[in-house]
């Protein structure tokens, strides 16, 4: 069953998900080379978050296969190592961070579970790694932060903590489901810059779920437009904006453009 043919680090083939009688994702395939970013865009109910959850191994597809470095992953029951390599960041950092855990505990849990620092790391080693992660996501390096709980931080800072948690176990693939939708625009910019930088420095591959074409354009090499569970069009970002193809993609781009302003292009 092992296949080494493609250059893709991460692949989804013919993914189909049903919720009862409803088909949320309908035979969707994509491949993600190392260090590249793909944006999954579409409106509510398009199936983008369901696809993300299949990618992260949180939902088992009815049909189709997810492959990491050519190896098929078991639906849901992935090995610990496979789980480590594909991490997810959720839309709302308020509900994805345990409010009663300190930042130290939030960041260290994954490292300890996945033995990324060896089997029994000392507290100093863990602390050093935590501070390194906080610096990486732009939260400073003061040890005082580690004892604080999520509510002591702003929404943008919490999303940085959630990203740091995902990075803590050195993943190859980051699945980010609307990571900036709950944030103010100026904060959104910072988080997108951070994700772009992490791609550069860590060679992280990124699967970004967003309803916002501006966000996808800012960060992604390729974009897949989804509607009603299907992939409507899947091209390079440049290619899509130059020639969106199917009518739905044209309408979506036109609607997004009409309420978007490129600075200096108005008037």
């Amino acid at each position: 069953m092992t296949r080494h043919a493609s250059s893709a680090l991460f692949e989804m083939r013919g993914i189909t998900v049903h919720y009862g009688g409803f088909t949320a994702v309908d035979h969707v395939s994509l491949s993600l080379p190392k260090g590249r970013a793909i944006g999954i865009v579409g409106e509510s109910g398009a199936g983008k978050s369901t696809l993300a959850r299949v990618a992260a191994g949180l939902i088992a597809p009815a049909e189709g296969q997810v492959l990491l470095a050519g190896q098929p992953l078991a639906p849901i029951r992935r090995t610990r190592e496979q789980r480590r390599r594909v991490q997810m960041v959720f839309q709302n950092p308020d509900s994805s961070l345990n409010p009663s855990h300190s930042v130290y505990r939030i960041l260290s849990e994954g490292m300890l579970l996945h033995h990324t620092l060896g089997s029994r790391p000392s507290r100093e080693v863990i602390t050093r790694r935590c501070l390194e992660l906080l610096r990486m996501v732009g939260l400073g390096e003061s040890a005082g932060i580690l004892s604080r709980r999520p509510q002591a931080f702003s929404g943008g800072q919490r999303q940085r903590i959630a990203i740091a948690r995902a990075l803590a176990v050195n993943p190859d693939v980051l699945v980010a489901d609307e990571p900036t939708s709950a944030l103010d625009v100026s904060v959104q910019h910072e988080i997108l810059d951070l994700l772009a930088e992490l791609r550069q420095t860590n060679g992280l591959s990124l699967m970004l779920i967003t309803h916002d074409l501006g966000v996808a354009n800012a960060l992604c090499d390729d974009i897949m437009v989804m509607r009603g569970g299907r992939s409507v069009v899947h091209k390079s970002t440049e290619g899509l904006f130059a020639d969106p193809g199917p009518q739905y993609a044209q309408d979506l781009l036109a609607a997004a453009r009409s309420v978007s302003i490129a600075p200096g292009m108005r008037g």
Partner: protein
Amino acid sequence: MNADASIISNQEHPGAAAGSHADSCHEPIIRVNDLRITTAMGNRPLIDGISFDVQPGETVGLVGESGSGKSLTLRAIMGLLPEGVVLADSESISISEHKRLAMIFQDPVSSLDPLTGVARQVAEVMRYNQHLPRREAQAQAADLLISLGLPASLRAADRYPGQLSGGQCQRVGIAIALATKPDILLCDEPTTALDVTVQLQILDLLADLRERLGLTMLFVTHNLGVAAHLCDRLIVMQHGRIVEAGATEDVLNNPQQEYTRRLVSAILPIPGEQDR
């Protein structure tokens, strides 16, 4: 839509559109003068002395990020302040005499009663405001909803909010506001919860209603693109204060304040075909 235009024409206020040119050219329809709102517990100012006027027929956008006080300002004008906050001086807001306010809300689904048919909800407002008989109100409500783009089958059978899409529910919210025959429409992020294609439909609907009914609009949004699409003037808020105000084009093309520049530069462009 034209067939039903009479239903949403503003018969009681024929001067609403024309009046802006005739008698009330220099008389603002909304005047906010040194508005201050604090928390009931402490003295922390939430709105810290803001002033602005809205002229009849104008569409003014209140823009800013979370916590800027834009929604609170709108709610103060509507008289719908949440519990736990205090308006320092009720005189700080004045509305022109006999001018009526209505408001539409961010989350169209939760602002409707899930257990009552939507035509009936609109009819209730008509009965209360216009003292129409029940059957008459029900028929007019269905007509109004259909003129705003809901399916014509509403005339035969009412539907519950849960049977409608988010965009359709927002049209119901707009119908409820229009059923009061307002002169001023206050909009609190009315398209934020909607998909982008639906957002455009709702913005176009609001622009169309503004033209036909001569509505004055005060529009709260965090989205500068949405504000630019609809508003003549923008008021940029941060931390309960006005940072900058001016004509939409000026604010976006030539922002004077660092904060406004930051907001404008944070807009992510959607490449156009002309960029190729």
